[in-house]
């Protein structure tokens, strides 16, 4: 399934070919569909679905003979009129035709045409199409035929992969059945493009277990219609098992079937081209597959391909009805690897002592262990060769693993190939001591080789290496053990209040700041403030009381209240003080003006 969806994408990317089905029924799914339809039925509807459904799948069902009376026939004929629903018309027409009774086709056509305009939904029109497939070919079915195209326009395209009605799977499957039934009946190709047919295949066959008997029935009908009609037969191509070829299994096997998983034995399957994915060189051109027991086979190893991935373009021909008959396939050629020329040596860093190489053969282990301390390097070189062709390989995974048997520690390095595909690995003891945590001891050396195209991945204990490190600071336990222990608690430091000056200083300055008030009082007394002129009128007293109260309110605000409360009290006191003060000042003003006038009068008189 993955393969086909990936090749759908590759098909879109290359743009050369049309869609290929990404969802189809496998043989097991078809068997499941039959099982669902074979369940025992309890009512007429289920009986209809089961019998007709199994019939479509090619499973024979016992015939039943039903005697028909004249009244029944007249009743059925009368049901064909503009007043019955399309479903009623369909039921009566299909009953009449399966009983072999004559129909008035033109009447049916006119009834259907008028009903279609009234019942505009998908199910109804599909039933109309199905009804028309039972009618005589002399009747004028072109109007109803046009409905196929109109309905097809109503299909929703989901992501370019699926094409289905929003009413769901059943409606789509029934539409496909009806459209092909009618098209076959009038021998006119349905107005569905190849891409649309494949998208319909994806939609209908993407569901592998069905909710109801009617859904299973609709899928069975659609499968039968798509595998056996005169115009479009979608081809399903899939590899039998993984698409892998090797010396042991040199045959590439393909299943080429229709949607019901019946092999298309009359078709011819040809590889149009096969090229390597990495080098893009073509290996095959127009090679045919041979048919054996319903499976199409090709011996790919005859072309001596190197290991790797190959892109196949396969074409299925032989029938003009075939749809989606050009397929892209990715085939893997795998092989076995063998390690040759494995040389191990301990080299002195200053190159003073000559290297002594030991050759080791797979799968044995070197007899002596190698000792390397901080002045020496341990070196290893080898080649990886394809056992069948002798070609040097560069697999994806070539690792050298050193495992300390005592502490369980392991360190893994990568061996890199040079330009001549000779793998080299060097361990500089002093440089790498951090990876080893400077723990000296005996390490078992393993070579790990792996790749997707290798059939025999290798894990080989090559030798034992004794590493000696300077400054052994071996920690007693491995670091990781303390990773999941609760960490030390973090104590939160609350914000410390700011430092205040000593109380003596504060008090001194308070006194200092308040002292000018005394000075003010002294000055006022000296200047002879006019306290004797204090009138004891009520407004005056009230004003002073109110003013004093306001000052008191300020103090209370500082100590107890908030702004809203203060504003409330201030409004009350303020208005009171204002009224009293206004009165008082008015009186004062009157007095002042009277005094001014009298002094002016006196001045005037004295002047005269």
């Amino acid at each position, binding site marked *: 399934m993955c393969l086909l969806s990936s090749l759908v994408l590759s098909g879109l990317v290359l743009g050369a070919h049309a869609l290929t089905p990404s969802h189809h029924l496998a043989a097991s799914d078809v068997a499941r569909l039959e099982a669902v339809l074979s369940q025992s039925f309890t009512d007429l509807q289920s009986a209809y679905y089961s019998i007709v459904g199994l019939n479509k799948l090619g499973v024979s069902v016992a015939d039943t003979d039903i005697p028909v009376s004249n009244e029944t026939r007249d009743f059925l004929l009368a049901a064909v009129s503009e007043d019955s629903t399309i479903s009623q018309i369909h039921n009566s027409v299909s009953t009449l035709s399966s009983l072999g009774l004559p129909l008035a086709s033109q009447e049916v056509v006119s009834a259907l045409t008028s009903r279609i305009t009234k019942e505009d939904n998908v199910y109804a029109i599909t039933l109309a199409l199905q009804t028309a497939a039972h009618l005589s070919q002399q009747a004028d079915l072109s109007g109803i035929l046009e409905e196929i195209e109109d309905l097809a326009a109503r299909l929703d395209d989901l992501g370019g992969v699926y094409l289905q009605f929003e009413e769901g799977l059943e409606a789509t499957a029934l539409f496909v059945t009806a459209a092909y039934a009618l098209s076959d009946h009038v021998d006119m190709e349905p107005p569905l493009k190849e891409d649309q047919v494949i998208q319909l295949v994806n939609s209908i066959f993407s569901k592998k277990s069905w909710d109801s008997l009617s859904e299973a029935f609709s899928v069975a009908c659609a499968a039968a219609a798509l595998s056996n009609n005169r115009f479009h037969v979608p081809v399903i191509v899939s590899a039998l098992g993984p698409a892998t070829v090797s010396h042991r299994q040199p045959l590439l096997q393909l299943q080429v079937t229709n949607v019901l998983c019946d092999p298309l034995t009359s078709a011819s399957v040809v590889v149009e081209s096969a090229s390597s994915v990495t080098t893009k060189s073509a290996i095959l051109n127009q090679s045919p597959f041979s048919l054996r027991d319903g499976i199409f086979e090709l011996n790919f190893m005859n072309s001596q391909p190197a290991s790797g991935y190959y892109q196949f373009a396969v074409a299925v021909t032989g029938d003009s009805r075939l749809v989606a008959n050009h397929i892209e396939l990715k085939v893997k050629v795998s092989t076995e690897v063998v390690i040759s020329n494995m040389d191990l040596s301990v080299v002195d860093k200053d190159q003073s002592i000559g290297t002594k190489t030991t050759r080791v053969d797979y799968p044995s282990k070197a007899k002596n262990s190698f000792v390397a301390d901080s002045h020496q390097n341990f070196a290893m070189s080898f080649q990886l060769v394809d056992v069948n062709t002798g070609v040097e390989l560069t697999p994806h995974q070539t690792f050298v693993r050193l495992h300390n048997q005592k502490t369980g520690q392991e360190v893994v390095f990568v061996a890199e190939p040079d330009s001549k595909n000779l793998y080299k690995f060097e361990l500089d003891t002093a440089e790498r001591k951090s990876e080893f945590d400077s723990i000296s001891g005996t390490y078992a050396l393993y070579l790990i080789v792996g790749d997707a195209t290798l059939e025999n991945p290798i894990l080989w204990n090559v030798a034992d290496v004794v590493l000696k490190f300077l400054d052994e600071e071996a920690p007693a336990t491995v670091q990781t053990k303390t990773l999941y222990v609760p960490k030390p608690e973090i104590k939160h430091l609350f914000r410390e209040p*700011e*430092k*205040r*000056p000593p109380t003596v*200083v504060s008090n001194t*300055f308070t006194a*200092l*700041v308040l*002292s*000018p*008030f005394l*000075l*003010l009082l002294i*000055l*006022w007394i000296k*200047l*002879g*403030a*006019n306290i004797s002129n204090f009138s004891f009128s009520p407004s005056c007293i009230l004003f002073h009381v109110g*003013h004093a109260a*306001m000052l008191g309110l*300020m103090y209370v*605000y*500082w100590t107890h209240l908030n*702004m809203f409360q*203060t504003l409330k009290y*201030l409004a009350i006191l*303020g208005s009171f003080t204002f009224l009293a*003060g*206004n009165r008082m*000042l*008015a009186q*004062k*003003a009157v007095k*002042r003006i009277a005094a001014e006038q009298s002094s002016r009068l006196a001045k005037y008189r004295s002047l005269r």
Partner: protein
Amino acid sequence: MAASLFSVISRFLEEYTNTTPNKLKLVDAYLLYILLTGAFQFLYCLLVGTFPFNSFLSGFISCVGSFILAVCLRIQINPHNKGDFLTVSPERAFADFLFANTVLHLVVVNFIG
């Protein structure tokens, strides 16, 4: 230089004591009081530090604001300036002074913390 400065100051003080009406002298005494209070607050801030800064600001602004309002009052009740303030009687000036002071001290007490 110092001698002339001293003579200017003594002359100024003499004229001030003689020509200024009593009412204005009272207001001037009040102004001096406000000035000293503000100066002492500033001195504390310089010497001891700005903690708590909001209190210092509110006290200082109170002094500055009161000083300004008192100066306004003095200008308005000065008989020399009667021509400039025909619509504002001394009583009205005093009432304005009281109202403005109330608003100022409301804000000051809010900010003093």
